[in-house]
């Protein structure tokens, strides 16, 4: 891949990050943002009100960074799963992680718990859900793809039913709206704390995927063929599942269900750099980070009240995916 592409992968998300700090309903001049950022390292005479610094450093910056990590993580997981399942229509929630996380969050909201407990429970349930899927799919110490997919459907259906149950018993005046709003996905209210909670698992999972990205190429040729080329396929699948689950559970736990990112972005990345996961994973991460950051900027600035992320990603993602599908006639080049 050309060096320009690598440079673009790093610089474009950073540029959008900078823009995200001055874009918003509370208007801040770009120059002030630059000065505030610089004041962390060099002494700059403060020519701005303290409230501006709070908005930039404590509200917009953590939120923007979180959006980038979530976007990058979901896209990389989606790309890894599409390769592993040899199916470009798969995304990170195929093993039931989203449904299980959603139930975990709903349970915490039902019990009137705070933000930290909601995030924690969502994360734990996500991990438990995928573990269930994996155990269910294990036959004779192997994990055939078909078994994984079917087990994922079963586990997702089970947790969806539990979620419906939680909604049914929730107080319709206070808790039901909270659950519903959480499910729509939002980065509103993300703090340094949520950053500390979601970013480490996303980094660990992302790094794990990056380490196996060549073997992921070989695995995408099929289990049997990969095994004949010396890949221990069941172990590799286990590693990929653990990594994507860490990422997705962490992402869902801090911002609810954000659909479409993990499905559409890998396609975009594949169109840009081709199917080789050595380039595809970084490209998907970079595009995903930029995309979700832009979406989140729209979510918090186009209307007086926040628009849930899940609505925007689907409203933009679905037509775009339809366009891609028509244009390529389903040939996923």
């Amino acid at each position: 891949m050309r060096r320009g592409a690598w440079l673009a992968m790093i610089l474009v998300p950073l540029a959008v990050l900078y823009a995200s700090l001055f874009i918003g309903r509370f208007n801040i001049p770009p120059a002030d943002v630059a000065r505030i950022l610089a004041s962390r390292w060099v002494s700059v005479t403060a020519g701005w009100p303290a409230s501006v610094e709070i908005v930039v450093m404590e509200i917009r910056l953590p939120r923007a960074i979180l959006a980038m990590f979530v976007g990058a993580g979901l896209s990389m997981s989606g790309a890894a799963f599409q390769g592993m399942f040899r199916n470009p229509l798969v995304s990170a929630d195929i093993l039931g992680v989203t449904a299980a996380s959603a139930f975990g969050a709903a349970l915490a909201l039902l019990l009137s718990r705070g933000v930290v407990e909601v995030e924690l429970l969502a994360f734990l349930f996500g991990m438990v859900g995928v573990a269930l899927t994996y155990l269910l799919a294990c036959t004779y110490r192997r994990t055939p793809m078909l078994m994984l997919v079917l087990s994922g459907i079963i586990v997702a259906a089970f947790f969806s039913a539990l979620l419906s149950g939680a909604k049914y018993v929730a107080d319709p005046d206070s808790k039901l709206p909270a659950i519903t709003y959480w499910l729509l996905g939002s980065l509103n209210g993300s703090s340094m704390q949520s950053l500390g909670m979601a970013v480490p698992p996303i980094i660990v999972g992302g790094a794990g995927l990056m380490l196996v990205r060549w073997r992921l190429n070989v695995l995408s040729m099929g289990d049997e063929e990969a095994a004949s080329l010396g890949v221990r396929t069941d172990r590799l699948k286990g590693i990929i599942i653990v990594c994507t689950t860490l990422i997705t559970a962490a992402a869902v736990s801090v911002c609810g269900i954000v659909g479409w990112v993990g499905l559409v972005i890998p396609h975009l990345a594949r169109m840009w750099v081709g199917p080789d996961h050595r380039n595809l994973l970084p490209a998907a991460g970079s595009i995903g980070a930029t995309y979700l950051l832009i979406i989140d900027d729209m979510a918090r600035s186009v209307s007086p009240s926040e628009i849930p992320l899940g609505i925007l990603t689907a409203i933009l993602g679905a037509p775009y995916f339809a366009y891609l599908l028509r244009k390529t006639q389903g040939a996923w080049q």
Partner: protein
Amino acid sequence: MSKRLVEVRNASFKYAERVIFEALGLDLSAGEVLTVLGANGCGKSTLLRCLAGALKLCEGSIRIAGEELARLDASARARKVAILFQEHQATFPFSALDVVTMGRTPYLSALGAPSRHDRQLAERSLEEFGLLHLKDRAYTGLSGGERQLVLLCRTLVQQPEVILLDEPTAHLDFKNQVRCLKLIGALAGRGVALVLTSHDPNHAFLFPGRALLMQANRSILIGAPSEIITSASLAATYGIEVGVFSIPRAPPLQGLTVCSPW
């Protein structure tokens, strides 16, 4: 005597109650080609998978280049045995060069990626077989014949002692069948042992080596093609009447043997 690469001793394999082969013994030397013949569903592919270590024998042992196959881990096995399966599904448009480079995977560390040297090896093997023009083409866009040749190149960069091919000429047109068969002959000349399954008994006569006939009554015949491929043995294998004919040719060419329904 050339190096003995495959030693099968008293091997048997069955699916539940269905016996595929029993008490099979077989030796293959470097440069030898074994053509496995048999009716649909008789277990040719199963035999090949056992030789690749993808399926475990119920009894007996297989040694590849002196080492017990069952004791090798996946990459050590892949450095000794390469196999091309009959069914191959191409999902993502990897370049032909990337696909050939995948043959280097057993030589990489668990988290490693191919080096420039690995890519050069892949490129050289494409060049050797006159396929270099395909190198940057999306593998999904190649014709069936080109794809098969690219996959054969991949087995080559795997640098195995033994190459197993499951119906390598299936789905190929006549020209590509011939190209593919010639390539297989060239591979045998490099000191590997080759096992291929085929639906065409004539293939057995094309290579220096023996034929293995999996007959309908579960008995297995192994021997020189000219000795074991007869009207009677083909009838016992496929349940049909065919003739086996010798066609003399002027020296230095050797005579040909062909099977024909008439």
